[in-house]
Structures are given as C-alpha cells and as structure tokens.
C-alpha cells in the first residue's frame, strides 16, 4: 500500500515554515462561512470541501447556487474555472510515475491537485527518489486536504462572529500567500517569464472575456515563455 515513511514525510510538511496551512485555513474558513450564509448545513459544507477541494470551484458553485443557476450551468462554470487543473496535473504526474506503483494511487491522489499541494510538491519532489514520490505526494495531499476540511468546519461554526473586516482580511491571505510562493519558485528564465507574463495577461484578458481570461491569458503567456526559453 502506501509507504508510511514517505507518507508522513510529506504529511509533516504542513508544519513547516513555508506551510500552506495558514493560507489554506484562512480561505476555507471563508468558504465555510460563505456556505453557511447561502443555506448549506454543516454536513453539506464538509461534504463539499471533501469532494471538491479546489477553492475557485467552490466559490463559483456558491455564486451559481445563489442565483439559482441550473445544474448544467453550474457544471460548465466550475469546469471552466477548474480547467487549470489539467495543465497542473500533466506537469506534475510524470514526475511521480513509477512502474512499481499501482495506477489507482495516481487516479485517487489526483484529487489532491490544488495550487497549495501542487506548489509544495513542485518545490520538494527532487529530494525524494522517484519510486517513493507518489507516497510522499499522498502525504502532502492528505495534510492539505485535512486542513481544508477542518477549516471549513471552523468557518461554518464561526460565521456569526466573522465581521466584514475579518472576511476581507481572510480573503487577501490566499492571493498573498500564493504570490509569495510563486516569487519563491522563480528559478529559471522559462518559469520566471511564465509567471510574469501570466500575471500581466490574466488581468489584461479580463477586458476581452472575464470567463476565459485566465485560460486565454495563461495559455498565451505560457506558450510565449516556453518558446523564448527554448530559443535561449
């Protein structure tokens, strides 16, 4: 099954200095409070984070639910905002693939792919032998996922005590954390250009198409960065 030594090595990263615990916690506390406010009960809120575990998707779900969107529309809106998980998976899983490991581990643990776990894995995979990377990844994923679930519960229960200022404060923690993580990841020309161009083109494309801006801006920025990097 899962090698516990590597599992816990990954799991324990949530206690480290660059741990996403704080940022994830802050955002999922906000999600818990939001779900309560739109009429979910505690079990449904837990169920939602348990099964989805991707922040932008949960936000889109909440917004669509509030305006009474149809299930098809909710599906399309969530699928669109979470398409970014596709390039994230394709750029992570080949690093973890090993012949001796069963396939179910990959199909199950891809559920943990979200910005936080992905960035931690990208920053740490080289320190682990290829054979054990999937177990290490399952550890990281389980840790971050549990934080998200526990924080959803806290947010749901504390929602009456969270005022507007606290909600605004909680909302900035996530983008600040990820901006810092991305700056910390800037190590070579291709990645640096991808990040800088993406940060410019994402908001720029918002003027053309709010829904598609992240995909258009991101794919264009990444492709330009790739070719410039290959030319050098």
């Amino acid at each position: 099954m899962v090698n516990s030594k590597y599992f816990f090595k990954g799991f324990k990263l949530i206690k480290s200095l660059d741990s996403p615990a704080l940022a994830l916690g802050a955002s999922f506390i906000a999600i818990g409070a939001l779900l309560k406010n739109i009429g979910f009960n505690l079990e449904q809120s837990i169920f939602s984070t348990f099964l989805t575990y991707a922040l932008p998707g949960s936000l889109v779900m909440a917004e669509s639910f509030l305006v009474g969107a149809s299930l098809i529309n909710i599906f399309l809106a969530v699928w669109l905002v979470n398409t970014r998980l596709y390039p994230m998976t394709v750029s992570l899983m080949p690093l973890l693939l090993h012949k001796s490991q069963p396939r179910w581990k990959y199909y199950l643990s891809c559920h943990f792919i979200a910005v936080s776990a992905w960035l931690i894995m990208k920053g740490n995979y080289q320190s682990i032998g290829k054979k054990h990377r999937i177990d290490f990844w399952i550890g990281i994923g389980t840790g971050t996922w549990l934080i998200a679930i526990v924080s959803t519960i806290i947010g749901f229960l504390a929602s009456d005590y969270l005022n507007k200022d606290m909600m605004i404060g909680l909302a900035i923690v996530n983008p600040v954390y990820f901006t810092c993580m991305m700056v910390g990841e800037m190590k070579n020309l291709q990645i640096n250009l991808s990040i800088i161009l993406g940060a410019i083109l994402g908001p720029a494309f918002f003027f053309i198409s709010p829904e598609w801006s992240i995909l258009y801006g991101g794919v264009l920025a990444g492709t330009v960065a790739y070719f410039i990097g290959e030319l050098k």
Partner: protein
Amino acid sequence: MSEISSNIILVILVTSFATYLSRFLGVVSSEKIKETSKIFKWFNCIAYSVLAALIARVIVFPAGELSESDIFIRLFVVVVSVVMFLFNKRNLVYPTVLSAILLALLNNYL
C-alpha cells in the same frame, strides 16, 4: 429529504465531478508524457502562467468580499508582503498574517 437539501447534494456532486474531470484527464495524458519531453516543459510553463493569471486576477478583479476594498490598497498590501517575504528568509507566516491585518486596517482608515 426536502427538495432544497437534495438539490444542494446534487450541486455538490456536479461541482466535484466538474473539478475531478480535469484532474482525471490530466493523469490519463500523463501516462504518455515523459518528464524530459518538450511537451512536458510546455505544460509546465502553462501551469505556472495559468496560476499566475488566476492569482493576479483575484488581486486585480476580485469577486466577493475583496471587491469592497480599493485596488491600490490591495496592490500595496501584496507588494509589502512580498518584500517582507524576500527580506525575512522567505518565511511565509509573517507576510500572510500581516497582509490580513494591514488590509483590514487600511480599508477602514484610508
């Protein structure tokens, strides 16, 4: 089960299916992609740029609570936090905690 709560369950199931789909297809594609290949490098660039685009969009054009703060205050808070991160041995705890307090304060008193 009342109609509303069965509806909520359906909404959650549809959301999680729409989310898992991209992850699942990503694993299917990964089976054929070598980490040394050009296509892997290209997807790697796209993954980073899509994330950067997403984060930048949340800061510049936020939805929800954040949209009630001024964009210049948000940008100021992000810049201060990144500088703090870089000059503090890349510790992430201080800048994230500071950013929440700073934004709440500036949003009230500016």
